[in-house]
């Protein structure tokens, strides 16, 4: 079974040379730590930077330089700053190659819910609806089940949607899956996890090919 860093590490394998990548808050933010350093990748943060670098040293903290998670960051060589309209122009115009974000629920048709629990929690969608509404390639990073042990991979989302039929791939603590023909196709098992465990943790319909290899970490 993977922990959050393990999920991030596995997702980092999906990041290819030449990609511009938008990382959501939480597990997705960790992905930057595991991207191979022999490929060229740029991170976009939707509050207005392309070419986001690592966290600053204490001496280099700048209140005017944060990411979309409100964390202090640095800018890499070749970075640029821009306003929010330009930033979402990049996203809406499909100039960003890969979007990695968290979710509360994913449905087997690719629907995603991650911004609201009616009557309980309403943080807002932030940039998530713009991202999932436009991105060509969306990977969801999340735990396979919620704190109550219920599956987050569902036949249908029960929470208010963030976007419809948009998720490409899901990487959880148990498995890598992709959305194929309205089902969750199992691609890889997490180290030490067998297919029965994944079945039990998945409410939606699973497509299980003959050979499901273990993730190569």
């Amino acid at each position: 079974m993977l922990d959050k860093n393990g999920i991030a590490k596995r997702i980092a394998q999906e990041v290819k040379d030449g990609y511009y990548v938008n990382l959501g808050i939480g597990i997705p933010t960790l992905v930057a730590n595991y991207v191979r350093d022999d490929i060229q990748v740029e991170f976009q943060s939707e509050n207005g930077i392309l070419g986001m670098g690592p966290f600053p040293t204490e001496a280099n903290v700048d209140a005017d330089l944060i990411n979309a998670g409100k964390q202090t960051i640095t800018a890499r060589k070749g970075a640029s700053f821009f306003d929010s309209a330009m930033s979402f122009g990049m996203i809406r115009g499909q100039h960003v190659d890969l979007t990695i974000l968290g979710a509360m629920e994913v449905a087997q048709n690719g629907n995603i819910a991650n911004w609201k629990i009616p009557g309980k929690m309403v943080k807002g969608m932030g940039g998530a609806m713009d991202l999932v509404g436009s991105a060509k390639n969306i990977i969801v990073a999340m735990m396979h089940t919620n704190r109550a042990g219920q599956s987050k991979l569902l036949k249908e989302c029960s929470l208010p949607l963030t976007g419809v039929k948009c998720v490409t791939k899901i990487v959880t603590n148990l498995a890598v899956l992709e959305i194929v023909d309205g089902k969750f196709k199992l691609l890889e098992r997490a180290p030490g996890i067998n297919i029965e465990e994944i079945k039990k943790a998945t409410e939606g319909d699973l497509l299980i090919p003959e050979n499901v290899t273990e993730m190569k970490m």
Partner: protein
Amino acid sequence: MIIKKVNNVQEALTGVKDSMTFMLGGFGLCGIPENSINELVNLNVKDITCISNNAGVDDFGLGLLLKKKQIKKMISSYVGENAEFERQMLSGELEVDLVPQGTLAERCRAAQHGIPAFFTPAGYGTEVAEGKEVRDFNGKPHIMETAFHADFAFIKAWKGDEAGNLIFKGTARNFNPVMCGAAKITVVEVEELVKPGELDPNFVHVPGVFVQRIFEGKNYEKRIEQRTTKEA
């Protein structure tokens, strides 16, 4: 040149009244118009509608207006950093219109640029699309969104000149440029106010025509929400 300089925040906020709609720049606490927000607290204007990406934190930024219950309605994309906000919203004291962040930016920019409406895929198939026109373009459904207008826009820039030309620093730019000129009166506070001619005209982010009043702000706190660092 046409001079937009005013002497202080009090003069800059002349005409602000109860029940008005305000736009406020900033992302989280980064690039927020601290001086104008504090003056709105002092003026104690009530029943206001605020268009702002976030709602500050409990004791800073728009949180100060929320605490005093000056805000009737918030139009934002993300309000997760503010417990008082969530309380007022869930209890029904505060009206909230949540708007996808890119749509929020573009609706402000649309007002600035005289575009009454546009189509975007963001929010299709969600609550955001309820009551809105849906139309397919290139085989993909989009929803129609309209321009946001306001009575005042409160903007924070890094430097500005007396003619209202603005430049921003780092990610403190965010929503500030797109709100300039989207309101009847755009009020800008800057960290440094310079004479016209001191900014390179090639690198002005917002031309002065979008600005009605500009002043040099004071005592910037520039609070950081998530101070994250690495070893030196």
